[in-house]
C-alpha cells in the first residue's frame, strides 16, 4: 500500500491544562488527536500514582496527534506556548499513514 510520511506528536501534560491545550490545537486546525489517561509516572516533579485520588491535579494525560510534517514547527510553537509554564513533555516521531486525506489540516476546528 502507498503510504505517506507524517509526524506523531506525543504530549504528556497535567490534566487541568488539557482543555487549554485542546483549544490551542483546535484553533490551529489540527486534523485530529486522541487523549489517553495515564495512571502513574515519574519526572522531574517527582513520582505520582493515581489510585484513589480525588482531584485531577497531579494526574497526567497523554495526547497524541498525527500531523503533516509541514505543520510540525507551527504546532510545536503553539504547544510550547501552553506547555512552557506547565508540567509536561513533548516528543515527535515519524509515522506512515495510508489514508493521507484524513490528516489534512482544516482551516478551523469543526466544533
Amino acid at each position, binding site marked *: 500500500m502507498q503510504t505517506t510520511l507524517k509526524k506523531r506528536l506525543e504530549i504528556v501534560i497535567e490534566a487541568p491544562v488539557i482543555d487549554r491545550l485542546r483549544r490551542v490545537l483546535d484553533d490551529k486546525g489540527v486534523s485530529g488527536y486522541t487523549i489517553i489517561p495515564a495512571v502513574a509516572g515519574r519526572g522531574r516533579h517527582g513520582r505520582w500514582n493515581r489510585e*484513589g485520588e480525588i482531584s485531577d491535579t497531579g494526574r497526567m494525560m497523554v495526547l497524541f496527534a498525527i500531523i503533516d510534517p509541514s505543520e510540525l514547527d507551527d504546532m510545536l510553537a503553539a504547544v510550547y506556548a501552553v506547555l512552557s509554564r506547565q508540567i509536561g513533555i513533548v516528543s515527535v516521531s515519524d509515522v506512515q499513514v495510508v489514508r493521507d486525506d484524513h490528516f489534512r489540516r482544516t482551516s478551523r476546528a469543526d466544533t
Partner: protein
Amino acid sequence: MDVFDLAAANLISPPILFFLLGLMAALVRSDLAIPEAVAKGISIYLVMAIGFKGGAEMAASPLVAAALAIVAGIVLSAALPFISFGALRATSRLPRVDAAAIAAHYGSISIVTFIAASDAGMAMGLAAAGFMVAVAAAMEAPAIFSGLALAGRREGEGGGTMIREIAFNGSIVLLIGAFAIGWATGERGMAMVQPFFGDIFRGVLCLFLLDMGLVAGRGLRRSAGKLDWRVLVHGLYMPLIGAALGLGLAALIGLEPGSAALLMTLAASASYIAVPAAMRLALPEADPSVSLTLSLGITFPFNLVFGIPIYFAAAQWALG
C-alpha cells in the same frame, strides 16, 4: 461534655478511625487503594447529600441570618489569604508566588472537612443551620482572587475564563444545585430520598475517609523531609488562626454554637481540590506539591482528628 470528652468521642468514632486506618496503610506502603472512579463517585454522593439536607432544612432558617453568615464566610475567605501570606513570607523563604498559592488554599475550604464536622456535630447533638452549606459554597472562590492579587497577577486570559471556571466548578454547582433542590422539595423531598441521602450517609463517609487517609498518607510519604519545617508548621497554626477569626465573626453575627463550629471549621480548613486546579491554571510557576502536601497531608488530618473537637468545644464554651 468538655473538650477532652469531645476529642475522645471524636477519636473513637468509626469515620475518624477509618481515616487513621487509611493513613497508616499508606505509611506502611500497603497496596490498599480505592479506585479513582469510585472515590470520585463517592465524593459526588457526599456533596449531593450534604447540599440536599442543608436545603431541606432551610425552611427552618431565617433568611437574614443566612445572608449574614454568607457575608461572614466571604469576608473570611478573602481575608485569610493575606494572613497566611504574611506569615509565610515572614517565617520562610518561599518565593512570593508559592506563598500566594498556599495562601489561596487556606482562605478557601475543604468540603470533606465540613462534611465530617457536620456529621460529628450531629453525633454530638449540636445540629447546625441548613444555610451553613451555602456558606461553604460561598467561601470556595474569594480566596482565589486574594491569592492572585498577592502574587501580583492580573491574568490576561485568567480574568474572564477563571471566574467562569471557578463559578461553574463541578462541586460548587452540585452543592448549590442540591441545596436548591432540597429547599424546593422540602420535607416531602427529603422523605423520598432519606434512605439514600440520610441513613447510609455516615457509612459512606467511613469509606471515603478511608480513601482520604490513603491519599493524605501517600502525599506525606512522598514529601516527608522535603518540606521546610517553617512551612510545615504553617499547616498547624494557620487552621487555629482561621478558627479563631471564625469564632469572632460567629459571635458578632449571633450564630448558635453548632453553626459557629462549622464556620470555624470552614475557616480552618484548606482547599485541596478546587484551589490546586485553579492555581495550575493561573499560577503555573507555583510548585503544586508544596501546597498540596500542606493542605491535604497536614491541615486536613489535623482538622479531622484534633481541630473539629476543639472547634466544637470552643464554640460551646464561648457561645453555648
